[in-house]
């Protein structure tokens, strides 16, 4: 079994603890450019959405990588891996990612992409609101299904 990072924007309060946890794990300090998760907030509507690598099965970043630095392998299914030593900094992966979630960090002069913290993502651990979830792939949508199911349950209990 393997796990998937699920985002629940309905639970996100826009606090950016995920960004901070990511930056801290990577650099032991807090730098906006060092994080691989970005929270966008629409202030007028009061809505926030965290964005991060979706670890695509057929990953555009890996497909365009000319050196194999970005790759998938069976040792870590559901994670697109990155080998910094093989990277030539061409940034094709940055261009190709449809979500904009492969970043080029101009301070560190390197490609920066979510590696799920080797299976224990700090962003999930630091989210105080359950807006990020690292769930077994078979359970990935359970919490969302169940939340809606419970609404049905309430409605049906009332009408019965």
């Amino acid at each position, binding site marked *: 079994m393997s796990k998937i990072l699920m985002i629940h924007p309905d639970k996100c309060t826009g606090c950016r603890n995920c960004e901070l946890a990511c930056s*801290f794990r990577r650099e032991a*300090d807090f730098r*906006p450019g060092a994080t691989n998760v970005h929270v*966008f907030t629409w202030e*007028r509507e009061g809505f926030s959405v965290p964005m991060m690598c979706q670890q695509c099965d057929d990953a555009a970043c890996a497909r365009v990588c000319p050196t194999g630095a970005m790759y998938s392998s069976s040792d870590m299914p559901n994670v697109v891996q990155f080998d910094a030593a093989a990277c030539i900094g061409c940034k094709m992966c940055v261009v190709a990612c449809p979500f904009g979630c492969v970043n080029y960090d101009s301070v560190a002069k390197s490609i920066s992409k979510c590696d799920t913290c080797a299976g224990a993502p700090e962003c999930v651990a630091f989210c105080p609101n359950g807006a990020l979830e690292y769930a077994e792939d078979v359970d990935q949508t359970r919490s969302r299904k169940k939340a809606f199911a419970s609404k049905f349950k309430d409605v049906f209990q009332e009408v019965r």
Partner: protein
Amino acid sequence: MYGWTGTTLRIDLTNGTAKREATNMKLAHEYIGARGLGGRILADEVDHNVDALGPDNKLIFAPGPFSGTFAPSAGRFNVITKSPLNGTIAGSNSGGNFGAEMKYAGYDVVIIEGKAAKPVYLWIRDDKVELRDAAGLWGLNAHDTTDKVREVTDEDAKVACIGPAGEHLSLMACIMNEMHRAAGRTGVGAVMGSKNLKAIAVVGTGAVKVADPEAFKAAVLASRRKIQEHPVGGAGLKAYGTNVLVNILNETGALPTRNFQDGYFPTADKIGGESLAAKQLVRPKGCFSCIISCGRVTKVDNPEYAGIGEGPEYETAWGFGADCGIDDLDAITKANFLCNEYGIDTIAMSSTVACAMELFERGYLTLADTDGVDLRFGNVPAMVEMVRKTGEGEGFGKRLAEGSYRLADSVGHPELSMTVKKQEMPAYDPRGVQGIGLNYATNNRGGCHVRGYTIAVEVLGNTATMDPRVTEGKAGLDIAFQNLTAALDSSGACLFCTFGIGADELAGMLTALTGVEYSVDEFIKIGERIWNNERMWNLDNGYTSADDTLPPRLFEEPIKTGSAKGEVSHLGEMLPEYYSLRGWDEAGVPTAEKLADLSL
């Protein structure tokens, strides 16, 4: 440099120049940052006699060492200036992301000096600093200003700005950031307006560094756990926001009603956090690095007051609600939205409307004064209309915009203004909760609850409990809260962290972050130093112990109904002990020994 950035930015609006200078690290260590450091800089650089709305006053923006880190709920920054409302050393505290972004841009402090010849806005992108023409922004509300500034700077810039109230130099004008967050009190928005500074936009790409990452992370995780396990910090505030307090204070008999004519509002439940959660709450909102999420994203469907925004907080629901004799939550939330757009302090605004209602009912104001509005308690549309008039600076609104003290004084009845040092008191009746009255009376910025929140002990039983009706022990309690809060405000942390952690945890995190050893005693002593620095400024400004008082109503008119029926404030029993425990003489002046002990 750890925690701090080591750089201060100085903007001279008169000459249109910007200068980067080294932060005075000796002062930073002694005053931590934000409120403390900004207050020290103001006291050192600004003559207390300056016209608060003149070019010689300075407007200081300062986050704290925690700002920009994942210390729990540490997104705060302070705005420090001489208050145009009352001449005190004004400080106003706001959340959101603006303070953290200042740190990422590289600044511990931004000092704004002088006055621009024409409206300008300040655009800071790391070390690139520009003053730009704000002609196209002048007159816009805070939300539209934020959008427009982002269009011409960066779409995700963090923007602090004034609305029309600040432009009109209203003494209740706030500085709004990210649309819904406010440096609300003491009239800081008027100072920004007086300088012709419409907005500040910031984008930062630098780092806040950590001295001992492992220790810092461990200390942060331990603090987070304590806050999350606390019934208020971990559950109550997220579920119901600060407005959870309406029913609690009403049961205590200390929910000021109809301009403090009573302490109990029979239909309070209709305006409380539970009703808000059921009727208007879209979702909780958190400031930068917040683990509490007391913010309320709210939506009003009622076509008369429809809108989406944030709030109301407890103070706002109380002020536009119980204090105006109103229990229509939709109208209250609408008044809150209007305040956020115009950039108005909801506490000052609502209490001023309540004062005007009493002046009207007593015949001291007439229909000729109020532009024909029947300004009686409970008149819902009139309340909303008064906010609009104030924001627009129109008709009677011009008088309201000066605050309740000047309004009541103008008709010969200053005693009907529910203010301390001309600033409106918040939503806790000093007759029903004795300690908070002592805090209002001694507070360095006038009527204020957040700089000595004894309610945590007197009503909520945060870490201990004390009977709200007694005066014994309250002087010591007040001092403990005032000192702790002064240090906490200076660190960049949110007051609500104290629902779970105290000086122990804060000093521990600060030490690990900055590499400067802060013991618990030293942390509290810094708070005391900050408090005394503020006190000295106010005394230099002409304040005396005679100003450490409350409106006469609170001594003379007992609460009429509810569980605190018959109570009055016994401030006189507490004040001498307060001075004595503070190491001040009988006139409330810090002794030479005390000042020396605090290196002042």
